[in-house]
């Protein structure tokens, strides 16, 4: 990208857009420090009580643990599946590669609610409702298309000739992949991991169909909490989620470069 000076009007426009997009998010922060028993803005007093409350809310803490573990497992699995799949589609040019890519990424186009209903029907028969395994499988269905998209794009952007050079120097296909292709794909791999983690962690619609009294994820627990109570507890959770998201984004930025990873 060339570095041209940004016109003032564009700067103002960008600022207004940011305010529009971020205002609701920013509003959550003061509310989370409220001393009131229900969500109002501005709060009548300040306190840390909702954070303390959260620490003692075993249901929320349990859901946070489930969501985190779920997101980690789904991220690892989606990488293990999507990386070889991307390689087969882009580099090995298996028969029908284009059709396969379209098929694998099709869930992106389906309304999540339809997908959720379909999964509910299938899982009910298989006894997977309200189980951790069921959640993992369902989240994989949602996450894999994203992972595959980012990884295929990342791989397709790599010059094949560098891999060819490695093979003429005596590297077997597997060595070429681990020593040359994977390191060059690193920005794409980091982006995929971050995206997979966030998509799974944030997933609410399908989880709603699958969770039950025995197991629940954080977004579902929050949704159910808001349904019955209007206290600022969820605001406190939201702030923690914002911090977590920022942390993930910063890790991506530090390791692979944010613009390089998501913009390119």
């Amino acid at each position, binding site marked *: 990208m060339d570095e041209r000076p940004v016109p003032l009007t564009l700067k103002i426009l960008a600022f207004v857009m940011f305010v529009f997009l971020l205002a609701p998010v920013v509003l959550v922060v003061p509310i989370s420090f409220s001393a009131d028993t229900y969500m109002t803005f501005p709060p009548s007093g300040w306190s840390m009580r909702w954070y303390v409350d959260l620490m003692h809310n075993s249901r929320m803490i349990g859901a946070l643990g489930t969501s985190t573990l779920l997101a980690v497992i789904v991220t690892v699995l989606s990488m293990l599946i999507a990386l070889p799949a991307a390689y087969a589609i882009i580099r090995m040019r298996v028969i029908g590669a284009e059709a396969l890519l379209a098929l694998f990424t099709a869930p992106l186009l389906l309304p999540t609610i339809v997908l959720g209903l379909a999964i509910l029907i299938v899982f009910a028969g298989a006894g997977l409702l309200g189980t951790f395994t069921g959640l993992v499988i369902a989240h994989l269905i949602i996450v894999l298309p994203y992972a595959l998209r980012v990884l295929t794009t990342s791989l397709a952007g790599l010059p094949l000739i*560098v891999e*060819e*050079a490695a093979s*003429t*120097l005596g*590297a077997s*296909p597997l060595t070429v992949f681990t020593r040359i292709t994977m390191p060059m794909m690193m920005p794409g791999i980091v982006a995929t991991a971050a995206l997979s983690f966030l998509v799974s962690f944030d997933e609410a619609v399908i989880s709603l169909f699958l969770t039950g009294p025995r197991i629940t994820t954080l977004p579902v627990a929050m949704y159910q909490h808001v349904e019955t109570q209007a206290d600022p507890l969820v605001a406190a959770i939201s702030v923690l989620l914002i911090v977590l998201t920022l942390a993930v984004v910063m890790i991506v930025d530090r390791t692979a470069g944010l613009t390089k990873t998501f913009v390119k």
Partner: protein
Amino acid sequence: MQPGFLSIRSLTKRYETMVAVDDLNLEIAKGELVAFLGPSGCGKSTSLRMIAGLAPATSGTISIGGKDVTQLAPYRRDIGLVFQSYALFPHMSVLKNVMFGLEMRKVPAAEAERRAREAIAMVQLEGREDRRPAQLSGGQQQRVALARALVIQPSILLFDEPLSNLDAKLRDEMRSEIRSIQKRLGITSIFVTHDQVEALSMCDKVAVLNGGRLEQLGTPNDLYERPATAFVASFVGRTNRLSGVAEGDCISVGGKALRAPGASKGKVELMVRPHRMVMTAAGETMPDFGSEPINSIDGEIRDVYYAGDILHYEIDAGGQVMSVERTTSGGETPVSPGSAVNLTWRVADTLVFGAAQ
């Protein structure tokens, strides 16, 4: 044909709609530097990729040192390849790039590093071992690529237009450097290029390819002085073309009788190198060719171009346009367009080809 160190027999590459390489036969001796020369799409790069194992051959065989490698994967062929776009590993330092091939050959780390440093010194990049490729200029990157391919002491070294991305001055420098390293190490090499100057000035032999077929394999002198086909004559160096009808060694060109060695019967094409033609204007003395048989035609100057070292004349000789060159000496005035001139050249400098093309 004597079997060479690199032996290519009936090598063919067919794609669905086209034949990229058509029945290529070539024998290359140990230590030779051979150019694959031709216009783009002539099959020279495809041939190189087949030798490297990066593209499978449709039919035919490739053997190196008597061993058939046609079905071998590239990483089992012991070949060094220098690419036009360098193809360095962007995530590795210069040293690691050069060491990669040695590592793959399980050379102990200490020895690998010593040999890699030697190779880096040979391409004059000492002190840059820890840089990343992105921190180097194009010329330096190509030197790293060269060191990386040389350090494994491959049985054959392949160059795929390695100088095309460099500017003219650097290209000249790299040309002589590659040649001297190649000679010193005695590595059998193939140099793919579309640049005839590169092919003629660097290589022991040149294989001219056109439309997937080998037109001629010969020394640079063979190609220039004794081109086997009209394509070679016109692709290597510049030439003037005249079409005529042959009868024995006498050829009638637009009513004028010219002679050429070894002409046959029927429609033919004559070719003469521009600088082998001598132009004589009215009032100038005709040069003396001694007892050598000569050809001579009359014409009229249409245009003159000044190019510093030479004056370039375009002459209309009975409807056929010819180029003639005169070296400049400083004081002369160019013969002006419209002047009547005479063109003379030795019969021995006349190339004749059947007019199939």
